[in-house]
């Protein structure tokens, strides 16, 4: 072995590269994926034709309706409108764009009046709880624009609030350099459950400068509060999540080990809106999104990465004490999206084109706390970067098939 770091790195990369053979069935899987994306492109193409018509009659400039197509046909049928719905598919790949530019992704946002999804040209879109506004991000500051941000981390170059009533986006102003902004090592923002504030977790290179920003969606006024725990107790790099009452935040703690390495999850800390620590509950898995609190706030769904071959699981814990109430074993890797009610979770599973008899298409599954699937829904678009769930209240009956 070479006696310097570069030699060690070469050896380690070589070891990694030789650690597994290429996946079997790569050619049919790739061609199948390319065909599905082509189908999606054709569908989007139909939507774009509708946009031109929409523009002529003065509809929203930023909104691209998908008439018919994937959004309307995707979900399985059902009787009546059920309580929950996916309010946005954020970061959907656009197969027409071949370079890895920000235009590579768009988003679908639920049109509550018409009960369908409309396309917006932003790679990030999160609707407000009442559905009247959408937090959107655009651009990519990971290449060549890092000087504008607080720290140069990967993220959008601009974040704003889209008003669905008129299609206007108000972009959040950029404070002077040196002042924490919504750029840099922050997440993409999250609406509070009551829709009155937007939270950005701020994790700059200097851990002690960590904190969070609260943005008033009416005035776009930004308030920064320091929270050093984000840097010192958070080696997993997770974001703050809103607590159900919109009166504070929760953070999964993973402090450094004595050797300076990333540590295990030790608990969940709860803070008020000023960043004051209120309490800590023990935990061994992570709380990643506000939607992982159950609807009445009494339970939390927690997950943790698992080694290859191990069975993924979701831990249901008491939100007051952290005590484990149930461990749900899952049969395959999933993306946990949240709760549909106190007894059911919504998860996203990726299609499996390689296993004979397996479902090749992605699916949204409603599973009970025993891990049994009680409902399967086809997503409006496959493999979005993020999905957001909300209430289906006010949706027309024609949207029943989108609800769960």
């Amino acid at each position: 072995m070479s006696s310097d770091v570069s030699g060690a790195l070469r050896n380690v990369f070589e070891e990694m590269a030789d650690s597994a053979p290429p996946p079997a069935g790569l050619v049919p899987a790739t061609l199948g994926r390319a065909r599905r994306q082509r189908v999606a492109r054709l569908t989007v193409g139909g939507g774009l034709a509708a946009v031109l018509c929409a523009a002529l009659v003065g509809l929203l400039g930023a909104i691209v309706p998908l008439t018919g197509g994937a959004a309307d046909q995707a979900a399985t049928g059902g009787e009546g409108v059920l309580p929950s719905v996916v309010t946005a598919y954020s970061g959907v790949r656009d197969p027409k764009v071949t370079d890895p530019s920000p235009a590579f992704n768009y988003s679908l946002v639920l049109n509550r009046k018409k009960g369908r999804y409309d396309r917006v040209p932003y790679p990030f879109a999160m609707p407000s709880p009442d559905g009247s506004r959408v937090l959107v991000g655009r651009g990519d500051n990971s290449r060549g624009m890092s000087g504008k941000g607080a720290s140069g981390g990967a993220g959008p170059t601009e974040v704003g609030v889209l008003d669905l009533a008129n299609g206007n986006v108000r972009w959040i102003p950029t404070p002077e350099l040196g002042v924490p902004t919504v750029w840099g090592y922050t997440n993409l923002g999250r609406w509070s459950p009551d829709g009155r504030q937007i939270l950005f977790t701020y994790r700059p290179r200097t851990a002690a400068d960590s904190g969070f920003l609260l943005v008033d969606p009416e005035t776009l006024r930004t308030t920064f509060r320091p929270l050093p725990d984000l840097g010192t107790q958070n080696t997993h790099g997770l974001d703050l999540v809103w607590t159900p009452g919109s009166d504070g935040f929760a953070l999964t703690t993973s402090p450094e080990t004595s050797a300076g390495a990333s540590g295990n999850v030790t608990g969940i800390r709860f803070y008020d809106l000023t960043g004051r620590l209120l309490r800590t509950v023990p935990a061994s898995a992570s709380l990643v999104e506000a939607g992982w609190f159950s609807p009445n706030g009494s339970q939390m769904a927690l997950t943790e990465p698992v080694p290859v071959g191990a069975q993924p699981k979701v831990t249901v814990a008491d939100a007051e004490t952290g005590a484990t109430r149930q461990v749900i074993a899952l049969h395959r890797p999933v993306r946990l999206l949240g709760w549909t009610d106190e007894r059911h979770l919504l998860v996203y599973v990726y299609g499996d084109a390689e296993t004979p008899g397996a479902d090749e298409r992605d699916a949204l599954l409603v599973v009970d706390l025993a891990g049994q699937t009680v409902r399967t829904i086809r997503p409006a678009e496959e493999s979005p970067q993020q999905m957001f769930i909300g209430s289906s209240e006010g949706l027309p009956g024609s949207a029943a098939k989108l609800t769960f």
Partner: protein
Amino acid sequence: MNADLEREFSEFVEARSHALFRTALALTGHRQQAEDLLQTVLARGARHWTRIRTGTPEAYLRTALYREQVSWWRSLRRRREVSAAQVPEVAATADDTATVDLHLALRQALAHLAPKHRAVLVLRYFEDRPDSEIAEILHCTESTVRSQAARALARLRDLCPKLEILTIPKEAVGR
């Protein structure tokens, strides 16, 4: 894509997937993520095969692997999946225990690097690319490559104190 082109693409993938998958594994450190990354890029290559087949398709796809891996929207997906399977550890053979320990610690530290930092290290130390080519692949300047590499190595040292027994590569401070 017609049948002839599809056959040609299939033959290309059969012949070159091993080399491309090695890069994807070095970039991600996760078998499943490497599979997804490679399949994403190959699917894009399939759609544009008629255009890229006449040039240097492997170079095109290799560049696409790096750019896809460092894109911020991909980082969102990485963070929100429940399962993040690690590449299986390689069994120790003739290496002494200290080397095995160092490699294990280094692998764990690499897993905590930002994708762009890791990509710079892979391009430098796995593919032995000069900074000018790295800059072209990652769409940035050579000075950015140097600063990213220096930061990546500094972060590695923070995460992996065992590296202190080794010497600093001179290219980390510019080459």
